[in-house]
């Protein structure tokens, strides 16, 4: 009697392995998706507005290239002027593509969310429940991003269609396009693990919001969101190219526009993958060390 009744009860609670894991992941993903799609109208409008600064950039760069052309105009029949390897149309295409890259790599509220969970003690939930904090956050973030793309694909397609004239080279070749997609995905993961690692600083310092703001500022500049990194003067430029920030915006856009020579592309992709592994390790290590320091009181 006792053996027959405990058997069916015990199995669902102690189901292990991949099927259990997948069902947990699926539930987390679905909940986050539903949560996100509530505000889709606001989302779509907000996404479209995010392209407004591009209009200013188009006019600014037109004026800049116009002045360069007027100065060099004496050399008749010469090619359209380029700065840092970018012509006017390339420049506009670059800004549009960094919008795509940022849509993958930006992680609004990730680091501050982790820091807050540490501060108000909510993090102990993950120490008790059989889910891993970083894995849970990654899944929620993927769900948020998927929901975002589901809505944002409309505005993005519209803007890219309107601006198709700026893509002088047309679509890149299949391998380059594949590399572009890979760099976007890795950019997403680098962005995630980098920001999560910064959030872990919350284990050591209680207030990280100002620190985060400074990080965001520098990442805006160093990721190439502000302008293509090839415009930087020689010394600083080489240094900035060594930093991992470029994978958040500059690198995917440069790949798409064919600014990375074909023979260097595999190596560059490998370096990006190496940075990704580095940040996964840093994030895990910081979390492990932080948990050791952490102490929660009360209920």
């Amino acid at each position, binding site marked *: 009697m006792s053996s027959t009744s405990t058997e069916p009860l015990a199995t669902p609670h102690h189901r292990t392995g991949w099927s259990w894991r997948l069902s947990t992941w699926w539930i987390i993903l679905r909940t986050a998706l539903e949560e996100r799609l509530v505000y889709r109208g*606001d989302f779509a409008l907000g996404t479209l507005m995010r392209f407004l600064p591009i209009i200013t950039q188009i006019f600014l760069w037109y004026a800049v290239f116009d002045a360069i052309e007027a100065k060099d105009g004496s050399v008749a029949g010469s090619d359209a002027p380029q700065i840092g390897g970018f012509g006017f149309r390339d420049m506009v295409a670059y800004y549009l593509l960094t919008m795509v890259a940022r849509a993958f790599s930006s992680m609004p509220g990730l680091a501050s969310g982790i820091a807050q969970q540490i501060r108000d003690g909510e993090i102990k939930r993950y120490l008790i429940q059989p889910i891993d904090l970083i894995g849970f956050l990654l899944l929620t973030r993927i769900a948020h991003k998927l929901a975002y793309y589901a809505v944002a694909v409309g505005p993005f397609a519209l803007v890219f269609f309107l601006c198709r004239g700026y893509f002088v080279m047309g679509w890149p070749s299949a391998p380059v396009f594949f590399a572009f997609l890979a760099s976007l995905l890795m950019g997403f993961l680098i962005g995630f693990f980098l920001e999560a690692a910064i959030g872990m600083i919350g284990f050591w310092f209680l207030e990280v919001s100002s620190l985060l703001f400074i990080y965001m500022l520098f990442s805006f*500049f160093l990721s190439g969101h502000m302008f293509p990194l090839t415009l930087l003067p020689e010394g600083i430029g080489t240094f900035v190219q060594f930093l991992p920030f470029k994978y958040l915006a500059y690198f995917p856009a440069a790949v798409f526009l064919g600014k990375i020579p074909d023979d260097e592309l595999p190596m560059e992709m490998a370096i990006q993958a190496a940075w990704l592994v580095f940040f996964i390790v840093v994030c895990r290590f910081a979390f492990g060390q932080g948990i050791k320091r952490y102490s929660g009181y009360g209920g």
Partner: protein
Amino acid sequence: MSESIAGDSITKETHPVGPNYAKVFLTFASNSLVRDMTFRVNFFLQCVSSIGWTLMNVGFYLIIFQYTGTIGEDSGWDRDKFFVFLATTWFINSMVQAFFMPNAQEFSEMIRTGGLDFALLKPIDTQFLVSFRRIDWSALSNFAAGLVILTFALHSLATRAVDPMIPSLFSVGLYIVFLVCGVLMMYSLMISLSATSIWLGRNQTLYNFWFYITNFSRYPMEIYDRGWGKPLYGFFTFIIPVLLVVNIPARLLARPIDPRTGWEWMLVGWALLATILSLAISRWVFKTALLSYRSASS
């Protein structure tokens, strides 16, 4: 504070007097300073990040001027003059951020939570109370940064070999007048946008909208004056005059006063008129929006 209100209501019985607005403003300012100084490290870091942002922008434009002499062909916006323009942008933005931005944010929040009830009950003009309650002192570090940029730019402009220029006292006077006009135009836009949250409930998107619209004011207006930019040029000059905000004062300081076209003087006059109009319209929007306010709680 509550005591002074009580005192007011007593005197009101005998002969009605309004509150002393200057005094109230100074109280707000000193309260905010005390509050900012309570979290000193935070204040310091905010200043550091403002300066960082300034340096990045200066770096960006220095890079641009490595490749080109002017922004736009024959527009006259060369490096030194453009940095005068940039300093002007910095002055206006820092003042808007210091005085109005925190208040506009709080205003939207007050509407959502019903806290506006308390503002409406106070015996003082509601728009004044809502607009000046909080001052973000750390934003004024950008004002200082703007002064540094302006000093360098004017020095370089005065001492350079080709086409040197020292602005006359008259143009400095006009510059200050139109700097104030610029701030007032931005204020009108901001208070109107935040007042609309009475109708819309929450206006996170509108707040972003403010950021994106003012983005247009950051560059010389000539760059929009071509092709499909012309409608934008017209719209942001005559309907929502954000293009005038920085352009008018910056032009007055960066170029000699004397050879000016009639069109330019017309724009200067229009900027003055636009300031008065936008203040009046924003006041009207604010008052009308308040009529639709229903308290959120109880």
